[in-house]
């Protein structure tokens, strides 16, 4: 049995005419102005706030997380190179500069320094075997370097003093490379 639409408008002329009219209306300046006024109105603001603060916003956020939208967005940002462009941009540099100059950073640093947890972490790190070993190794290395330097200087002084003594006593200079075997037992 044919439907009522087929009977009333057997060629679909009415539907096509309606769509054409709607298309014209949406493309008109009037529709554009109406949309602008609506979006700038307090009503639109209230609607958006209602969506964000209400259960609809929560549901949308949960759904986005569940569906991996955030991961996909992050992947897309990285793979498309958009993230690199954003990070290299002058705007980002300016933004970072503003953050660094802001009171927010000063306050954050002050609060971190005042927190007891930070000093517990610092204490733990300072007591860790890796750090104490590194400090001890550095101390020993420094002492070794000092001893080596002292030894080199004293040996130069040995040679100089010996040259002077031998010259005063008119003895032949000390042999430089003589190999002396130990006395037989």
């Amino acid at each position, binding site marked *: 049995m044919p439907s009522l639409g087929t009977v009333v408008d057997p060629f679909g002329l009415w539907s096509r005419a309606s769509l054409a009219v709607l298309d014209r209306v949406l493309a008109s300046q009037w529709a554009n102005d109406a949309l602008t006024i609506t979006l700038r109105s307090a009503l639109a603001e209230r609607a958006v706030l209602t969506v964000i603060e209400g259960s609809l916003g929560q549901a949308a956020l949960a759904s986005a997380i569940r569906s991996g939208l955030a991961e996909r967005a992050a992947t897309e940002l990285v793979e498309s190179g958009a993230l690199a462009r954003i990070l290299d941009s002058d705007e980002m540099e300016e933004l970072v500069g503003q953050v660094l100059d802001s009171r927010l950073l000063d306050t954050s640093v002050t609060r971190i320094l005042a927190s007891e947890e930070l000093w517990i972490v610092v204490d733990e790190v300072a007591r860790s075997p890796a750090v104490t070993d590194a400090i001890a190794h550095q101390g020993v290395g420094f002492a*070794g370097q000092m*001893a*080596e330097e*002292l*030894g*080199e200087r*004293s*040996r*130069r*002084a*040995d*040679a100089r*003093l*010996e*040259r002077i*003594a*031998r010259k005063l*006593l008119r*003895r032949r200079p*000390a*042999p*430089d*490379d*003589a*190999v*002396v*075997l*130990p*006395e*037989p*037992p």
Partner: protein
Amino acid sequence: MIAVAAVADAPEDSAPPRRYVGLVTRALAFALDAALINAIAILVAAVVSLTFSIITVPHEVKVVAAAAGGVIYLLWIIGYFTTFWATTGQTPGSRVMRIRVIPASGDRLPPRRAVVRFIGLTLATIPLFAGFLPILVDDRRRGLQDMLARTVVVEAPDEELPASARHGPPSPR
């Protein structure tokens, strides 16, 4: 390049030849040892003095204790040098300066020759250190104490020990 008087050969293994050590290096090592000996002696003397300061003892006991302290100080000095020379060949001061006392022949310095060396050291000091002057002109840089105890002082790179110290005490002779 550092001029050297002569180079000691390693007779038993293929270790590189070692230089004899001169007067300045040995004097520095001796000064470090003297500082260590006196630091420990002063610490001990301070503890003993504080003890006597709060305990009432007769004057005669204090005199005997002072005499005993002198003897102990002397034994401490002799023991310090002879023990290190006869075992590792290195006093702590020598270790810092990377030098070692070794016998002119043999592996390890016998304790008796270590004592002789200490006596030689004392004798070399008495005539205003003149006993050390031969170090400046001797080809093996030996002082009076080295000549008496038949020892030489050579360079000792790190972690180098005489064969006897590495493998335990020598077999009885």
